[in-house]
């Protein structure tokens, strides 16, 4: 294995006077934040051109810490604000960060419609299987049978597969990574940002406080281990039986469709045509 070292000046992008962040020690969200900053830096985006919107929840606190145009919106609605500003100023690079509850429960409608429109934006879903900020209630991605404060006897609901949902709804770039796979994560974020169309990246992140603690993974180490062991690179998944894939998740690029009609471009093309 080649040794990978990550040397990076995060201070350039952090709003240091807003730190320390609210995330619990050992939370995976900081790893995603840092990966996002490295990806943006790699792409040499100007800070003034980047807009980050978020909803409500742990993940949604991310924008406050980073020096871009940042909008911490209402629960589930971050994509609606993102669509508004992207349509109004298409030159801006618009990124939405959201949790699993925020993106897929209360924000589910906006999720599928942003995907349907294939609007040139990126959504990063921080999936920790739970409502961490409110203390560990049941989430739409919570694995069947697992425990939450509102499913004390085990969840009897099937969870959403974020990536399958995004693909089915029309997103043209879909991938998954984890807070363990930080190097892959950085690369995937950069790919998501450069994809033309709606890109959805699910990141499995660890919440040992609200989720792991109730599900035999009390420490961040156990949860990171879970991410490492359960991840199946998408390129290997094809050789595995459904039984072998049960309880595991695919990582890496899941789906990509190039040259699809993109909403911003289509809209402005039409505006040009009908202009008085």
């Amino acid at each position: 294995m080649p040794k990978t070292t990550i040397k990076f000046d995060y201070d350039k992008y952090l709003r240091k006077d807003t730190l320390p962040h609210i995330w619990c020690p050992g939370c995976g969200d900081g790893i995603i934040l840092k990966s996002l900053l490295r990806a943006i830096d790699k792409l040499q985006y100007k800070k003034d051109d980047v807009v980050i919107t978020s909803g409500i929840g742990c993940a949604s606190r991310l924008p406050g810490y980073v020096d871009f145009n940042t909008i911490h919106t209402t629960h589930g609605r971050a994509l609606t604000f993102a669509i508004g500003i992207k349509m109004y100023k298409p030159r801006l690079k618009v990124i939405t960060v959201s949790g699993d509850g925020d993106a897929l429960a209360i924000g589910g409608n906006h999720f599928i419609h942003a995907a349907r429109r294939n609007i040139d934006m990126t959504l990063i879903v921080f999936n920790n299987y739970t409502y961490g900020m409110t203390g560990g209630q049941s989430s739409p991605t919570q694995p069947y049978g697992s425990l939450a404060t509102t499913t004390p006897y085990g969840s009897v609901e099937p969870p959403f597969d974020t990536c399958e949902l995004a693909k089915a709804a029309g997103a043209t770039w879909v991938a998954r990574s984890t807070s363990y796979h930080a190097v892959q994560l950085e690369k995937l974020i950069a790919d998501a940002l450069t994809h033309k169309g709606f890109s959805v990246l699910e990141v499995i992140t660890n919440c040992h406080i609200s989720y792991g603690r109730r599900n035999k993974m009390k420490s961040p180490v156990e949860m990171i281990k879970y991410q490492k062991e359960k991840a199946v690179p998408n390129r290997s998944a094809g050789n595995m039986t459904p039984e072998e894939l049960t309880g595991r998740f695919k990582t890496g690029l899941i789906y990509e469709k190039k040259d699809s009609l993109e909403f911003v471009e289509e809209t402005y093309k039409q505006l040009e045509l009908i202009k008085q």
Partner: protein
Amino acid sequence: MSENIKLMQGNEAIAEGAMIAGCDFFAGYPITPSSEVSEILSAKLTKKGHIVIQMEDEIAALGAVLGAALGGAKALTATSGPGMSLKSEHIGYASMCEIPCVIVNVMRGGPSTGNPTLPSQADIMQAKWGTHGDHAIIAITPSSVNESFYETIRALNLAVKYRTPVLILTDEIIGHMREKVIIPEKDTLEIIDVKLPDVPPSEYKPYNYKSGKVTPLAPMGEGYRYHVTGLSHGETGFPTAKMEVLQDMQNWLIDKIYKNIKDIEKYEETMTEDADILIVAYGSVSRSAKAALSMARAGGIKAGLFRPITIWPFPEERIKELSKKIKKILVPEMNMGQIILEVQRAACNNIVKGLNIVSGEPITPDKIYLKIKEMM
């Protein structure tokens, strides 16, 4: 200069008013009886090169409006009762984050689905208190098609000037009736445009309430990087739980409207100088009230009419003054008694009665006249 007069529908006048006022973004969701606003803008605002988008739901429509407004847009949405209920959280967000926007509510009956094709004035208190938490709001109740046109221009101006959501409350009658509108030359109108702050980005505080003045909202993407959150925040926009800041910020949200009430309030008085009985009416009902006033005067009763055009903040000082000499007040409304509560508060020593019809039929002049006679 020859007058440019056009026959228009109320909802059309709102769309036309918005366009002449420089509205450059619309997001909506279909709902009766307001859909014409979005249909007309879909056909015409787009021809000016601006975005009109039908979102997936009412909440998303206001979300998109707020996103665009943060990018510097003069943005508008239109809806009716159930849509107002759904938009309530984002109205609070716009208040809290001081994002200019205009929300048109063509009122219909309720609660719930109510009567989509019948008029109502039942959302007056919702306009004031619909979202959770304390805040101030500006709401306007035009009573004609012509006024819908001009008040939409004023609404967009007030939204930018005070960085606040402004509601236009018409009703199904005003929204669907056709009347003449006197279209002005654009250069005769006062239009308040979105502008960049007059300080460089390093000195910009997006919520500089300590200055006592409304700080311009810097359009995002122009070098002024800042944070917007619905959490209680200080002058830099970042969340805070400092008690003195929470108190000051809450005061500011209310003061910036109420301390400028003279600039924001607008009303019309008819024959109030010598009146023995005052009718307080707004929107389409004020038209019937005007006719009832003539009937009363012809019948020897000295009636007067006070018509709020800005309904929130309520012009209570003027009602207080009028109540000193006019002891009887009648408040006809197409609801079960909403603005009457404000009138009773302002004129607490007077006899204040309501005429409340919620059957979906307009309140006719004769019904108001009968009530006047009954009170005299």
